[in-house]
């Protein structure tokens, strides 16, 4: 069985627009605008990007946003801290749901 993920596929992203160019164009326009510097700098945005990429575990996004972080002058130290923030929030999100189980227990317990 071949690999599901190939790094060359990242360069084929535009092929997604083949069967619905209009929607893809709208996506690209929105995507580009969202990444433009505004109240947040480009550096802050790509750092958010790399953190999200790890949270959603998308190899294409990890590849792409890691490169963007390097191009913004960041190093593995910066990227690793961002991944820890993403992971800590992800872990915390699981933990806080522990309260749900406490509540569920409380509902049916003496």
């Amino acid at each position: 069985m071949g690999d599901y993920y190939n790094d060359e596929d990242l360069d084929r992203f535009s092929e997604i627009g083949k069967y619905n160019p209009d929607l893809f164009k709208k996506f690209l326009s929105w995507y580009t605008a969202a990444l433009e510097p505004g109240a947040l700098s480009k550096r802050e945005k790509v750092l958010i990007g790399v953190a999200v990429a790890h949270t959603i575990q998308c190899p294409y996004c990890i590849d792409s946003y890691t490169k963007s972080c390097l191009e913004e002058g960041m190093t593995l130290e910066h990227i690793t801290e961002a991944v820890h923030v993403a992971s800590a929030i992800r872990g915390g999100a699981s933990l806080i749901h522990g309260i749900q189980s406490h509540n569920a227990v409380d509902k049916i317990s003496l």
Partner: protein
Amino acid sequence: MGFEEKIRIVQSGPLRAQCIDILQVNLGYRCNMCCKHCHLEAGPHRHEEMDHRTVEAVIRVLRESPIEVLDITGGAPEMNPHLKYLVAEAKRLACRVIVRTNLTILLQEEYEAMPGFYKDHTVEIIASLPSYMESAVDKIRGDGAFTKSIQSLRRLNSLGYGKDLELKLHIVYNPLGAFLAPSQEKLEAEYKQELLKRFNVSFQNLYAFANMPLGRFRDFLVRSRNYEKYMEKLRDSFNPATLEGLMCRHLLSVGWDGALYDCDFNQGLGLPLNDRSHHIEAFDYIRLGTREIMVGEHCYGCTAGQGST
């Protein structure tokens, strides 16, 4: 599209020098370091070194031409025994003198006095520091390079470098791999903040350069199969606004053996001047000041994005 063709289209003719404001002199390829990005493949194993006769020819050119800036590079320029003589003579001619140092050499016992010598001659220092993070610097420049660089920067600061207006200390950033540098202005602000906060180190300016696809860096690109993509990135980032300020249009590079080149990168490639006056002994200020510049695909490195000069 090849660089030469690109230039002919963009500016309707070949790339020409505008003047020679700076004489950039390479004192040799000997170095105490073996940095992974070095386009000249300098290191302790290299023996090429400018001799006294060639140094005299450089001084003669400075004396007899209107050139006011001497930019000394290497290798580690400190390892050439004629460095002090060259600096002292150039200062006597009222030249602005720049030395590009790798910083770590200044901690070696035999070169410990160099920072004081630089101060006494108000030499402008340009120092390489590709990151303010230890692991990144050591990965490119060798174990311990970062700690030594910071020690040297602090020593230079203690002499007034990076603080007094007269004592200029600039830092050079180059990317840590096959990608381009960020905005120079933003990176300078970040470096200033981080180096001050972490190590109490100050400097005046930061220059962000692209890695040239030459020497060891080219070997890395080929070995890691990044060469084509990197060249494509450089070509795609071509910025015509960089052409006016290209260093090759304002300086002349002198090799350790006195051979003349359009820039240090052409020197690394062994690409000689397109002029019959291609040695410092046959220097002709007027003719060389309008020479046609020899270009190659590596020139895309100086025209990408914000430029690299």
